């Protein structure tokens, strides 16, 4: 297969190995569309050896921190992040699920206070493998498909 041409950015952050179709969620969670957010280059449904198909998000002129990018770990657990300076990758890391998940996942418990009051939903990671989270407010645990369904 010929190498696909994707524009190279002079500096910024490249988020690679996002599951195909998930780029809008990544952009939303990382708030990449806010006015000073830098130019966005998106490649969707790119053939990938690892994932079959994948999405790539490039943010020009902005360096995203590890902590910032870790927010997407729930939807893109295999994502890799490249920090580019002067057309060269100067730093590379894999996303990691943080100890606390704030404001990304809504609580599946309809009677949870976080679904009724003006407050950011918050979860504590109980286990990573398999992924199990506990709601900070109602204390109910969520796992598997329930997590994906409430992102």
């Amino acid at each position, binding site marked *: 297969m010929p190498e696909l041409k994707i524009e190279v950015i002079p500096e910024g952050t490249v988020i690679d190995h996002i599951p195909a179709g998930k780029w809008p969620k990544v952009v939303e969670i990382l708030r990449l569309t806010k006015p000073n957010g830098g130019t966005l280059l998106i490649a969707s449904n790119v053939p990938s050896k690892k994932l079959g198909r994948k999405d790539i998000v490039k943010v020009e002129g902005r360096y995203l921190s590890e902590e910032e990018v870790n927010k997407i770990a729930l939807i893109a657990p295999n994502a890799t992040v490249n920090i580019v300076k002067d057309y060269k990758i100067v730093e590379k890391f894999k996303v990691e699920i943080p100890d606390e998940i704030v404001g990304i996942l809504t609580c599946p*418990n309809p*009677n*949870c*206070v*976080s679904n*009724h*009051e*003006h*407050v950011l939903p918050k979860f504590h990671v109980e286990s990573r493998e398999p992924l199990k989270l506990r*709601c*900070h*407010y*109602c*204390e*109910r*645990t969520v796992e598997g498909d329930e997590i994906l369904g409430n992102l």
Partner: protein
Amino acid sequence: MDWKGRDVISVRDFSKEDIEFVLKTAEWLEDELKEKGSLDYARGKILATLFFEPSTRTRLSFESAMHRLGGSVIGFSSASSTSVKKGESLADTIKTVEQYSDVIVIRHPMEGAARLAAEVAEIPVINAGDGSNQHPTQTLLDIYTIKRAFGKIDGLTIGLLGDLKYGRTVHSLAEALAFYDVELYLISPELLRMPKHIIEELREKGVRVHETTDLKGTIPELDLLYVTRIQRERFPDEEEYLKVKGSYQVNCSLLENAKEGLKVMHPLPRVDEIHPEVDKSEHALYFRQVFSGVPVRMALLGLTLGVLG
């Protein structure tokens, strides 16, 4: 141990040391109270009881505790009498009420409401029940009652009977008992078994757990039988409720095979799970359990206010 300003939201926040400290304080207060009649550790302090859903017993128990400590009480007993009805947020209600008081006790129909209230308030918040989630003061008074009746908790064989699936009280009690060296019999109809994840947690913490539907056969093993009511309102499905309604009753003939010292507890109110004839027997511990609520809540109020010790 520094309890001043601390919130009491969930049994999950407690260590064994925390529990023991509360029990010791309650025991000391109960003796003080017996000796002096009334106390004045909380003189000049105000408790606000915010009951967004009614629970007369729990509210009276907290009010009695605060009065016995020499403090005073303000509050409301249903959301319809407050500005919540006008659409005020929980956070705003809490921020307003804390201007009038030194400690808040909250009961709310939504899970997590007490945690949210505690995050908003500068003063201590005590959870008196948030939906089907937690009711930590009930658990502490249960443990206190057991300790006072037996002089210990380690070494006891305890049966939890009834609605182990939806019963908030037994979930928290089991969690707290896991700090001790106990053997647990989980006795329930097939439909109302204790959730698997709780049983797993108990086993991980070293508790010997047995599941059974056979109440009669289990009775002779037990030092303590903790009975719960089947709560119609917790059932998502009426048909399921009708299948298990009235499926067990503790009466004197059942207790004939019990150990001499067997004690029966129940968080009350009861419907028909314990026959009134048991009340007069040596086994009944449930009214003593109600009484225990006062010293335990006195301890929690006094400790979080920072007026004790």
